[in-house]
């Protein structure tokens, strides 16, 4: 369905390290734990997919990394980009990083554009703002980038956002986000509101960013099959926690956490097997393993919170990972981690 992308085979460096990131929102009903103790690394030139259902906290996580959360959010943990902790930076420094170093592709491409500005200026705007380039030269570059994403001919660049289709708007948005050649692109449900065919195209374009622009992609989605087709690694989120992380192919083919397994069972090709029960609230999440009330393999141990545990690689997969040429550091995080007592 989606173009498969094999893991990169050359030496890679870590560019983003999220450690123990927790986000909560105090409300009158109690504190909403939108994300709890999230840790992951993002490597250079890789696509990491964060998969989870509505309200599991995946979008909050993205906003927390770029510090776009509303003022009442309580954030703890660290997000190290380069050698700096993004959560410690001043507002001025972080806004310099937003867009130029880390950029974001939003949901709903049609609404994310200013309806009163022509497409070319829309795409060129970050150049004028961040790099201080003249309008003319940035327009020229914008055109180049737009063409590389298939936006050419018919004066598309002279049009306004509402004159373009959703797919074109999405491509324009991707162009805007890569124009400053950022090192990380965070895509929050980039296919929401698009038709199947358009969604596939948008994903193809997003995944081409890795090769063309040398950026890493943090892809936030609820679509498990799309994530497995596009991403190198995948993290499954449930109720504010990462429950499983590992190479996409492994997580998808052989999910270890009961939730990932159940999620896979919901896929159309597996016959729409619903998960019993409903998603827990983030205000009073279940104690212990957050999935235990819905889990079919619940044991007494599940009442206590399981830590992230590394999983020993099975022999069939070890060869593949060896080939991906991880440094020692990388090796450690290539390894699968699962938050379940049984694994």
């Amino acid at each position: 369905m989606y173009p498969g992308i094999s893991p990169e085979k050359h030496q890679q460096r870590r560019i983003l390290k999220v450690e123990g990131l927790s986000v909560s929102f105090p409300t009158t009903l109690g504190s909403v734990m939108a994300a709890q103790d999230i840790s992951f690394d993002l490597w250079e030139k890789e696509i990491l997919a964060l998969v989870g259902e509505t309200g599991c906290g995946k979008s909050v996580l993205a906003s927390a990394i770029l510090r776009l959360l509303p003022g009442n959010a309580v954030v703890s943990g660290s997000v190290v980009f380069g050698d700096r902790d993004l959560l410690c930076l001043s507002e001025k420094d972080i806004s310099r990083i937003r867009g130029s170093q880390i950029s974001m592709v939003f949901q709903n491409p049609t609404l994310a554009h200013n309806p009163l500005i022509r497409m070319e200026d829309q795409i060129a705007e970050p150049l004028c703002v961040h790099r201080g380039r003249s309008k003319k030269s940035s327009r020229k570059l914008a055109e180049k980038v737009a063409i590389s994403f298939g936006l050419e001919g018919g004066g598309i660049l002279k049009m306004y956002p509402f004159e373009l289709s959703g797919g074109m708007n999405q491509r324009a948005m991707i162009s805007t986000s890569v124009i400053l050649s950022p090192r990380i692109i965070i895509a929050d449900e980039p296919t929401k509101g698009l038709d199947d065919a358009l969604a596939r195209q948008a994903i193809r374009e997003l995944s081409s960013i890795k090769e063309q622009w040398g950026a890493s992609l943090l892809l936030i989605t609820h679509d498990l099959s799309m994530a497995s087709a596009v991403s190198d690694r995948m993290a499954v989120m449930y109720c504010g926690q990462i429950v499983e992380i590992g190479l996409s192919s492994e997580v998808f083919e052989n999910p270890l956490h009961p939730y990932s397994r159940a999620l896979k069972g919901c896929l159309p090709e597996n016959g729409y097997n619903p998960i019993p029960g409903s998603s827990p609230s983030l205000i009073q999440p279940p104690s212990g393993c957050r999935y235990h009330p819905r889990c079919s393999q619940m044991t007494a141990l599940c009442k206590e919170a399981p830590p992230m545990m590394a999983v020993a690689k099975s022999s069939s997969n070890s060869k593949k990972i060896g080939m991906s040429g991880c440094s020692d550091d990388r090796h450690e995080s290539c390894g699968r981690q699962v938050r379940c007592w049984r694994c």
Partner: protein
Amino acid sequence: MAGLQELGFFNSARSSGQQATKREAGTVNPGTGDAASMNRHERGHFGPGSFSFPGFLGLMLFLSFLLMASFSFAIAPCDPWVRFQPFLPPGWGHFLGTNDLGNDILSELIYGSKVSLIVGFGAALLSTFLGTLIGLLSGYYKGLVDEILMGITDIFLMIPQIPLIIVLAAFLKPSFWMVALLLGCLWWTSTARVIRSKTLQIREMSFIEGSRSMGFSDLHIIFSDVLPNIFYVILPKFLLAVASAMIAEASISFLGLGDASMKSWGMMINFAFTRGGFINGYWWWYLPPGLCISLSVLSVILMGFALEERDLETERIE
């Protein structure tokens, strides 16, 4: 107090509660003990939550005017028609002095609040009722009904209103009831337009379509599905209508077209103007009614703004 909260004067009671719990929730992550794990997203907020002070002020002012109007016979120091020595400056006997006929100005002022409030609320009630009804019907039924009702609205919009009121007030028996009725019958147009556009928007939502396909009657849909969802537009609109009706009443009375047999603030200024109060510098004669007009209008407008703000707030939350 719950009623006040309902009306939005304690704007974000929610957020004030949030402030309290925030301190406890901002824990340091035990996993990473360095400074990086400290909570950095706390932002200074002022005071005990941010309840809408202007709204509260408006409500208090308004309540005092309401009190004045409803218990004027008890509050007023003397009968406003009783004559004392004329042109007395403010002093112990008469706090705000007396006018050319020797009437106590403070008592006149207190009795005058009645007219102002009755005209303001009467006209606003009538115009809001008419406007809401017409807006709802034309927005919900669309098509021919819409064209006819909006055509009528356009005609009413074209009428020069204040001159018409002046002419009618001059010919009909001038009474403040008549003024309220006239204002109400002329001022529903803008309400109708706002309500119509909001209704058009709401009726395209799928729950309306759903109710229609379930076989609910149109009246049921209009009053139980559409109306509650546009109520938040109606209330501020109503309050602003009250304010402008109060000003209009004062202007008409000032022009001498009001009810001469009733004490009203506009009429007081009119008398002060025509009988030499301005020229001779009897400031206690014309200044208090002017101030009262301004304050009462201000109080209503402040309440309207507070309500509007609350709606923006809820819209943002949703």
